């Protein structure tokens, strides 16, 4: 038992990771939005509408919605409901498939050119994170492994693997600690991030593809995709899932971003694509899931040398 285990257990007990949480949020969202949309609150609470009555109405709606999602049928069309249910189901199936192991290939392109990229593979508590964007000088090819609770990194100067020790014992000097970074990645490979994004998509449109997969397109607030996490260059930054820094509209939590989720014929999410920006400067962020449940465990590098060997 170590610090990491106890805090990982605590993070796994987060209400967001509990079954039904996404449904609760969605029910709350629909209910409150319905009240706002029907003019009850929009035309406003202060004097024209007794506050307590409005609260009771909203609460009643919340309770009803939480008790039976079917009650939401008055809000949207049948098709939109089906799409919402299908995306939610795909998120649950994918999270279950990814529980044991998997690979996520993450890319950001800017005007069609690769801006940043990372490939993450996980197997149980072990992780491998490789930066593989060729244009990122000094970053391309960097790799981090966590095997049996020990972090291994590629030495950028001398090459070869360096055993860096336990993540909680690594002091990065400033910014996000390795422990925090790994905790965030583990949240992303689990169902928490996936459910948060899929549960928040609105205006869903369904488009079947020839290969049996289906694309669900909609809008999602940037704040639900890119969370504030740490500092870079003295500025607070927002970070997309799997640790890539958000730019432009994606860094504005209220900005609506276009999201498309491709669900395979087997019901598992194949890809999440999020786009923002103008036609002249479009950003595209994609997460492609591969080998869910069948990704091999990363192995500790046999020739890794202890960190202290780097000191002169």
């Amino acid at each position, binding site marked *: 038992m170590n610090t990491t285990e*106890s805090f990982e*257990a605590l993070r796994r007990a987060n209400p967001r990771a509990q079954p039904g949480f996404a449904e*609760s949020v969605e029910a709350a969202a629909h*209910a*409150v939005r319905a009240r706002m949309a029907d003019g009850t609150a929009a035309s406003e*609470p202060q004097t024209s509408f007794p506050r307590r009555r409005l609260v009771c109405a909203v*609460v009643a709606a919340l309770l009803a919605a939480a008790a039976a999602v079917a009650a939401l049928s008055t809000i949207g069309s049948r098709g939109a409901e089906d799409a919402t249910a299908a995306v939610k189901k795909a998120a649950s199936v994918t999270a279950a498939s990814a529980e044991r192991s998997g690979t996520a290939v993450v890319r950001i392109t800017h005007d069609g050119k690769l801006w940043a990229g990372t490939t993450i593979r996980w197997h149980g508590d072990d992780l491998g994170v490789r930066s593989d964007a060729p244009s990122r000088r000094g970053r391309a090819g960097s790799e981090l492994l966590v095997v049996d609770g020990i972090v291994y990194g590629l030495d950028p100067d001398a090459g070869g693997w360096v055993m860096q020790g336990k993540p909680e014992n690594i002091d990065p000097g400033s910014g996000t600690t390795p422990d925090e970074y790994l905790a965030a990645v583990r949240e992303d490979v689990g169902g928490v991030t996936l459910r948060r994004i899929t549960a928040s998509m609105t205006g869903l449109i369904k488009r079947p593809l020839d290969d049996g997969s289906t694309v669900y397109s909609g809008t999602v*607030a940037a704040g*639900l995709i890119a969370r504030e996490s740490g500092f870079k260059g003295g500025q607070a930054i927002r970070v997309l899932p799997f640790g890539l820094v958000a730019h432009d509209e994606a860094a504005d939590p209220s900005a609506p971003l276009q999201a498309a989720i491709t669900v395979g014929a087997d019901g598992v999410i194949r890809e999440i694509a999020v786009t923002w920006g103008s036609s002249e400067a479009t950003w595209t962020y994609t997460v492609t899931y591969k080998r869910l449940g069948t990704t091999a465990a990363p192995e500790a590098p046999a020739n890794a040398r202890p960190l202290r060997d780097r000191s002169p």
Partner: protein
Amino acid sequence: MSDGERKRRFDALFASYSSDIVAYCSWRAPSASDAQDAVADVFLTAWRRLDELPRGDAARVWLYATARRVIANQRRSTRRRKALEERLAVEASVATSTDPEETLVHEALRRLGSADREVLLLAEWEGLSPAEIASVVGCLPVTARGRLHRARRRFRDGFEELSAATSELRVRRPRAAVEGGS
């Protein structure tokens, strides 16, 4: 701010942070119905005071602080149930959880003081920084940082102690069964 702008800003605020406030109220309020009540109250307060709301991530902190006050008011208004409610806020999860690890987590959380538990969960479950926690609970950042450090240490110690006790039980039980059967 025009009505249209107000509506757009509220929609964006709700889309960005409703899941956070639902999650926070779910562990902070004494019951599911109180949590739902609190979520509605928080966003109605936000709507009424939209012009005063800070921009960016500070709005998220404002919503947490408002949720905290709303839940505190709920508790004050039902003072007779207070002791029971405070216990139930954590114990309800323990009672319904069938996951042994989750049960250990909730038991370790229950052992913490309420102030320690609050800062720990604001950090670990809500992802707030010490400065943001200070804004939510109304203390200095240095105080929040100190409380958080203490809470983390106490939680880790409690969890490890409970885990060790559970492991010991697991080891003992098979032996007791064999002895009892022979």
